């Protein structure tokens, strides 16, 4: 956090000065560790064992927050008899289909009749004693996650584990809260979503959700990476976490019912209304009840169409045109080589950026040009570089990592040909509509009927506030016609309102740009509710009903946030209550109505279909309802818990440049004996497009480096600040060597695990002030099935002293190691450890599969996206 989010770390330092305990768990000792009370080095990818160990610790020692767990979680819910745990099936949950590598999650359902489950009233045992209650299942599932198991898996000493577990236990409860902050160190694993889930379970058990100083804080890395998920430039969702329709979902009612049933509890019951408002915003007068509000204009998905699937499609010539909006995949995406080769198969490509990033120049100075493998004369891709306006040259909003939308005012006009992406997209749309205006082709109707008319200024720049107003939504008829919606509660499903992103409704309430509010923080309380605007409804802490006890009283004076005011007959507090304002704590709810009305006075988790925080997730995760530990596919350690070595749902792609080491499951694993993990450092920003071109940042960290322990340096023969070449099954890169005690070899069972740290900010090219080999070239396109996000944090490599060879010899070097590891076969290019290579195949019999598609909408808007297998591409 101190590394990548230094300004946010001021609050940690302040808390520490006041006596808070800060524990940093990371394979490396970083600038965060330097300022923590304790650094606990961990073997990459074993977080579920560590957190599972803590879960076991608090369950076995009854240290969890009993009243909270009882009232606000699904601990008492009974799970159907079909459910079988990995403890029973040696690493698999029930419902696994080996041929497709996927689960059927109906095997994890709540017990009870279908209607009761749909209404959020499954069978429960409030004593938590029933063996199939979630509580008992959890206990059983984590029973083997002992301190010894933690030591033997994570390389964490019992003392460190004790310190961590005790710290969490002592600092949770009525008077205190514990908070988890994480970033891509959890996300970028094959099974990363489950790591985050594990901390979710722990935080629910400890009563740390919905409370000040609690929660799980995702430290996100781009100015509006939150906003671009809420209002997504992502294939699988529509604005407001509504899913994109899948092939076969041709019935609009069925489509919205799959998102949220009218009879279920909470706010998702109105998913149909949110969808209508979105469609109304997009197709205006052309969206009518008769034509299902234009629903049939929406394209349909047939599986996953994530950025890595698209890369594979490019390589097969299936994509002609590619737009880059401030993104540098040649450096920033996994398997940089395939990224660049993919781009070389395009017909045309538009790069919108401030600088000549490597993704704009790969055709003239990329690694494949350097090696002689490609020459510009062979590359057909037509390149358009369009200079982009920066954040001072346009007005607009960013949504920061706590869901707060903040508006930026424009300071100056963009220079030369530079334009905002707003103007680019609007103008491109206008030109395309103009060119198609006489078309009678039915496929063009969706474009021609689109509402595409925004006011522009004298430079042709659309008014960003007008776009924000459309996102917010407005009344279309009635006495308020034309007025902005004040909250999504005002949305109607009859076409009398529109709104482009329901969770953002309210950001333009009263016709005022609420995101532009700037009442100084020093003039407000710590909530600072009048600075910017947080979705939903300017609420700063989600599920804050849980900050009060079931009777509506704050759990403690120190930790009070939201409470029931009996006199006023309303919820009140320092934040906007995340609960129907006048619903009494003892309200039993009206299950016959569904939706908000069905919530009882203690159903604090208002987005969940049963109003409870989910210790056990019957839906929403494709790889199991309870997180369980698997080793990374390239890990050289056998899974100490199960025969199932790796996550059976993991996704990969067949390509000779996307091979993996077999790790502990094959003889070739020892060719790549070391673990490498990638990360950001303070001085740079992701793929370097916004930092390596700036002299003041470039000088601070001018060269690509690797961090190794003195022990590993001695073993390999590395010189301090000399060069090393790192070789994975994908590529070989060179880096300066930082030998440091900040990297510590870990004793894991009888093996010593060496971990190598690689910042990923550098890329090969000629335009940036500082250049270097890109760590992402080493990483394969191997994805988590829940998120389709690659594993960057836990891969295997070997390390040799000296610089890497130039020219074609670089590829030959990689090749020679692949050969030694038995990864290269004569025909059938190997997948995940060389099918056919002697002993190289995964012994657990699981085969990673290629493509997945989205399932239903995730139950929680900000939660993990859910997908399930649809169809092979």
């Amino acid at each position, binding site marked *: 956090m101190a590394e990548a989010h230094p300004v946010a770390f001021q609050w940690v330092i302040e808390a520490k000065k006041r006596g808070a305990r800060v524990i940093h768990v990371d394979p490396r000792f970083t600038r965060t560790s330097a300022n923590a009370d304790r650094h606990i080095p961990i073997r990459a990818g074993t977080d579920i064992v560590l957190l599972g160990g803590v879960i076991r610790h608090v369950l076995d020692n009854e240290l969890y927050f009993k009243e909270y767990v009882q009232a606000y979680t699904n601990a008492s819910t009974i799970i159907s008899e079909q459910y079988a745990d990995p403890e029973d099936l040696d690493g698999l949950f029930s419902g696994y289909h080996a041929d497709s590598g996927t689960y059927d999650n109906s095997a994890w359902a709540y017990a009870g009749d279908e209607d009761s489950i749909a209404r959020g009233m499954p069978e429960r045992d409030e004593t938590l004693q029933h063996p199939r209650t979630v509580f008992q299942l959890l206990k059983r599932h984590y029973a083997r996650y002992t301190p010894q198991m933690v030591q033997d898996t994570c390389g964490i000493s019992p003392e460190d584990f004790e310190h961590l577990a005790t710290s969490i236990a002592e600092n949770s409860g009525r008077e205190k809260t514990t908070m988890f902050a994480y970033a891509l160190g959890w996300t970028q694993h094959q099974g990363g979503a489950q790591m985050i889930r594990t901390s979710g379970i722990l935080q629910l058990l400890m009563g740390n959700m919905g409370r000040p100083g609690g929660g799980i804080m995702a430290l996100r890395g781009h100015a509006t990476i939150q906003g*671009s998920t809420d209002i997504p430039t992502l294939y699988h969702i529509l604005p407001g976490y509504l899913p994109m329709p899948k092939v076969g979902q041709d019935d609009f009612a069925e489509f919205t019912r799959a998102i949220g049933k009218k009879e279920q509890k909470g706010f998702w019951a109105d998913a149909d209304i949110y969808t209508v408002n979105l469609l109304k915003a997009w197709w205006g007068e052309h969206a009518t009840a008769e034509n299902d509000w234009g629903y049939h204009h929406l394209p349909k998905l047939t599986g996953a169409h994530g950025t890595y699937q698209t890369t594979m499609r490019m390589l097969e010539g299936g994509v002609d045109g590619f737009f880059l909006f401030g993104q540098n995949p040649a450096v920033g995406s996994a398997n940089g080589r395939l990224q660049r080769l993919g781009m070389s198969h395009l017909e045309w490509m538009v790069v919108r950026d401030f600088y000549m990033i490597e993704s704009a120049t790969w055709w003239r100075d990329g690694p494949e040009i350097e090696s002689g493998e490609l020459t510009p004369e062979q590359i057909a891709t037509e390149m358009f570089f369009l200079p982009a306006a920066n954040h001072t040259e346009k007005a607009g909003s*960013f949504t920061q990592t706590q869901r707060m939308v903040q508006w930026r005012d424009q300071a100056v006009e963009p220079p030369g040909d530079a334009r*905002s992406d707003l103007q680019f997209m609007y103008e491109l749309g206008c030109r395309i509509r103009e*060119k198609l205006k006489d078309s009678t082709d039915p496929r063009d109707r969706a474009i021609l009927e689109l509402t595409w008319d925004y006011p522009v200024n004298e430079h042709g720049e659309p008014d960003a506030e007008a776009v924000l107003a459309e996102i917010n939504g407005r009344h279309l008829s009635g006495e308020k016609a034309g007025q902005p919606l004040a909250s999504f509660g005002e949305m109607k499903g009859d076409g009398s309102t529109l709104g482009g992103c329901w969770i953002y409704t309210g950001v333009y309430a009263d016709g005022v740009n609420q995101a532009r509010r700037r009442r100084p923080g020093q003039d407000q309380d710590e909530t600072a509710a009048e600075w*910017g605007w947080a979705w939903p409804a300017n609420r700063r802490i989600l599920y804050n009903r849980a900050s009060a006890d079931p009777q509506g009283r704050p759990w403690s004076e120190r930790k009070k946030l939201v409470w029931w005011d009996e006199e006023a007959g309303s919820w009140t507090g320092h934040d906007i209550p995340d609960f129907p304002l006048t619903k009494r704590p003892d309200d039993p709810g009206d299950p016959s109505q569904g939706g908000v009305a069905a919530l009882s006075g203690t159903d604090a988790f208002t987005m969940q279909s049963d109003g409870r925080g989910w210790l056990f997730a019957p839906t929403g995760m494709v790889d199991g309802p309870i997180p369980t530990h698997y080793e990374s596919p390239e890990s050289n350690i056998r899974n100490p818990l199960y025969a199932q070595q790796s996550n059976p749902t993991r996704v990969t792609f067949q390509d000779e440049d996307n091979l993996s080491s077999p790790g502990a499951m094959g003889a070739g694993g020892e060719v790549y004996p070391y673990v490498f993990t990638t990360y950001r450092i303070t001085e740079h920003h992701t793929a370097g497009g916004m930092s390596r071109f700036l002299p003041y940042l470039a000088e601070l960290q001018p060269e690509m480096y690797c961090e190794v322990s003195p022990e590993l340096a001695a073993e390999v023969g590395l010189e301090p600040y000399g060069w090393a070449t790192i070789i994975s099954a994908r590529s070989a890169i060179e880096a300066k060597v930082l030998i440091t005690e900040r990297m510590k070899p870990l004793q894991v069972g009888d093996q010593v695990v060496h971990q190598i740290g690689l910042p990923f900010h550098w890329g090969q090219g000629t335009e940036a*002030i500082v250049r270097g080999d890109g760590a992402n070239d080493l990483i394969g396109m191997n994805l988590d099935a829940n998120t389709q996000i690659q594993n960057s944090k836990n891969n295997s490599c070997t390390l040799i002293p000296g610089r890497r060879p130039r020219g074609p010899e670089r590829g030959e070097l990689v090749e020679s190691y692949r050969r030694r590891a038995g990864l290269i076969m004569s025909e059938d290019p190997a997948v995940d450890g060389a099918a056919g290579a002697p002993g190289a195949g995964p012994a657990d019999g699981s085969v990673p599969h290629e493509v997945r598609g989205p399932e239903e909408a995730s139950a929680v808007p900000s939660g993990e996206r859910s997908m399930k297998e649809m169809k092979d591409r």
Partner: protein
Amino acid sequence: MAGMARITFLDWPVVRQLRGADPTGRGTSVTSARTRDTAPRTGSADGVADSICPYCAVGCGQRVFHKDGKVIQIEGNPDSPVSRGRLCPKGAASQQLANSYLRQTKVRYRRPYATEWEDLELDTAMDMIADRFIASRRKHWEDEDDQGRPLKRTMGIASLGGATIDNEENYLIKKFFTAAGAIQMENQARI
């Protein structure tokens, strides 16, 4: 000696040393006219715009000072309850992000198989991109799948990026691409 030519004898520091309260010549008697007129560069700004740092998602407040249509200084905004006026090295360098000598301000075009960039009018470029969008959309259009179920999409166009631009921009991209049936749009949230 440019400085000295302009000053009068009484301004000569030696004289000021003898006359004033600073006989050792280490303070008031040795200041130059320019020093006495010192003012912050931001004092002459045409204006200051409230902004947000463009790097990570902490969302630190920035104040952008500008003069003659150029950004001259970017500082933390002390009013922000998120950042309280502080910036990390990247945020502190964001003036350079705007003004780095490597900043591109002209459209560049590389035709197929060419070895170099060439110039192109922005208007021409936009028109060419629109034509290519339409053509690629048509070429890879999928009306229905092999079971005859509607798809109404094109696989010929993809986009990547969104996390570093604005919510409003994301909205327009999502809206138009979806209407055009181009489903393959992604951003850093997938990476």
